[in-house]
């Protein structure tokens, strides 16, 4: 209770309440996460359960247009699947891939950044040169490369099953450099501080110093990067899925939905692609705004 009161009185919460755009972004983000997590229970239909889909309902427009039906609020696609439900399920995949790939990039980046920053010397040089090389390629290209290699190595019959994990790995791996650089920088600053020297005088093991002393003090900027990276990861996933190398159409993400719907754009069924597209834009925008605010709120110089 005491902790809650302190949190409500903190500067961060105060700056949060003062900005309506941030409050709206937070609400939108929470709604998306809630919708995604609860999709199997709140979606009007499970679009991937063939028993619930009826071809007779195919290509219905949104409810406010003529022929629109109230129980398909955003219309249906050419196979009779409810667009609103596919968006809920699609966000589920998009957010899952986004969150897990950010987590993967974060763990990899923090670990390498800590080691580079704390050890210094040759270890630092090797890690950071690899980072430099990777940074000279566009992230999406790295992801495509990893995806391509994985497809070659993995037997064909497993492709569909593990496609999503390959995707997470590919997007995550293409994003670790930012974390490593930031953590390395903060780590070198913290390393010079007297509390770290005090721990060294006490005789703590370097690994204990890194994990218990340095790590908690470099997480602030990491949190900011992670939020902004989440938006980027969602976009990357959508891009890859749109290009057809992402998740398979049997469990489509927002990117896959946009790709599928794209084919019907000119035949008049615009809602099949526009609504998933709009959902993607709103979701990414909300997460981005949150990230921007967090960066400013955690930066004492701007306060």
């Amino acid at each position, binding site marked *: 209770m005491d902790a809650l009161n302190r949190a409500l009185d903190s500067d961060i919460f105060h700056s949060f309440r003062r900005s309506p755009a941030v409050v709206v972004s937070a609400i939108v983000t929470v709604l998306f996460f809630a919708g995604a997590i609860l999709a199997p229970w709140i979606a009007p239909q499970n679009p991937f359960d063939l028993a619930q889909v009826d071809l007779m309902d195919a290509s219905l427009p949104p409810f406010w247009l003529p022929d629109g039906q109230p129980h398909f609020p955003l219309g249906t696609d050419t196979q009779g699947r409810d667009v609103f439900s596919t968006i809920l399920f699609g966000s589920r995949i998009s957010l899952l891939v986004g969150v897990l790939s950010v987590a993967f990039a974060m763990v990899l980046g923090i670990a390498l950044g800590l080691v580079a920053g704390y050890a210094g010397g040759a270890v630092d040089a090797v890690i950071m040169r690899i980072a430099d090389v990777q940074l000279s390629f566009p992230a999406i290209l790295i992801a495509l490369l990893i995806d391509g290699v994985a497809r070659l190595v993995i037997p064909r019959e497993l492709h569909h099953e593990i496609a999503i994990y390959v995707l997470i790995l590919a997007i995550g791996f293409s994003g670790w450099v930012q974390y490593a650089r930031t953590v390395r920088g903060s780590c070198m600053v913290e390393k010079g501080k007297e*509390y770290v020297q005090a*721990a060294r*005088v*006490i*005789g703590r093991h370097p690994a204990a110093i890194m994990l218990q002393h340095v790590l908690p*003090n470099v997480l602030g900027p990491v949190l900011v990067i992670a939020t902004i990276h989440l938006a980027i990861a969602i976009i990357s996933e959508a891009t890859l899925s749109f290009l057809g190398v992402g998740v398979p159409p049997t469990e489509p993400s927002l990117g896959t939905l946009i790709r599928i719907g794209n084919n019907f754009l000119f035949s008049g069924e615009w809602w099949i692609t526009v609504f998933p597209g709009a959902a993607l834009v709103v979701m990414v925008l909300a997460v981005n705004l949150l990230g921007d605010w967090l960066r400013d709120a955690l930066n004492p110089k701007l306060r």
Partner: protein
Amino acid sequence: MSPPDAPLVAARGLARHFDVSRPLLNRLLDGAPRQVLRAVDGVDFEIRKGETLSLVGESGCGKSTVARLVVGLYRPTRGSVVFDGTDMAALASRAAAERVRRRFQMIFQDPYASLNPRWRVGRIVAEPIVAHALMSDPAAIRARVDELLLQVGLSPADRDKFPHEFSGGQRQRISIARALSSNPEFLVCDEPTSALDVSVQAQILNLMKDLQRALGLTYLFISHNLAVVHYISDRVGVMYLGRLVETGDVKTIFARPQHPYTRMLLDAIPDLEMSGRPRTPVAGEVPNPIDPPPGCAFHPRCPLATDRCRREVPLARVAPTGATVACHAVEEGRLPPR
């Protein structure tokens, strides 16, 4: 076992050089030479049990580097630190080093940087106990932390707070409690009061003296403030550009300073008694330590400098006052009376 009057801590020819050259590529392109900063360049001293030795000097004289060499934060380029008869560099195993390590601790200058901001005070103070596995029972550790907090003038209830909830002086007390928790015999104190206000400085200096008396502690005290050094020390070493220029009893150094640099430092202290004591104006500044003057490093600022001073590095010798002084003028008896 060492003989009873053997020093607890000794530095023997201690030196630490830092490579401050520009990166390899720049050096190759501009043909710039390698540059070495001789932060500490051959320092000898001994500290007996229960005694306080202070090292005093202006910024860049290497006093803080000596502190870090003594506790092992830096490895010496030359020379050694001997603790209770054991050469610290010769300790082979990690376990052996750890056994010696828990016998000394360090207190730092900046009370705002020396405590991990994300740890609670109880965990901070208990860190040495846990690190050296001195106790394992959580209740016993807790009791010991409470005892330490009381000992440094805080309350056991402070255990659950974070460092940012305390003032600078209180944080320095937490630092001292942490340093004491492994029952050390020797504390290295690097400017422990220079970031504090005078009234708080008095509290901390008094506390350090009380603790020394109660626990029989030995101190190596680093400071730029001569008045503080005068108050806290038994013996004083004056450093200039990486070397000790004069070492001796606190009374001798302050009453009968020999080295011209010691005299200059004493003259520069503001006259708080307002006795109207005439002050010799002090000339010049500390030269760049990367490129120190040849011979005696102090010669460009020294009123007594001769050709020999410009050529030859003076060796430390025992002067008639009993202090150890590295100065040609003292050795040759050219020193004017004060």
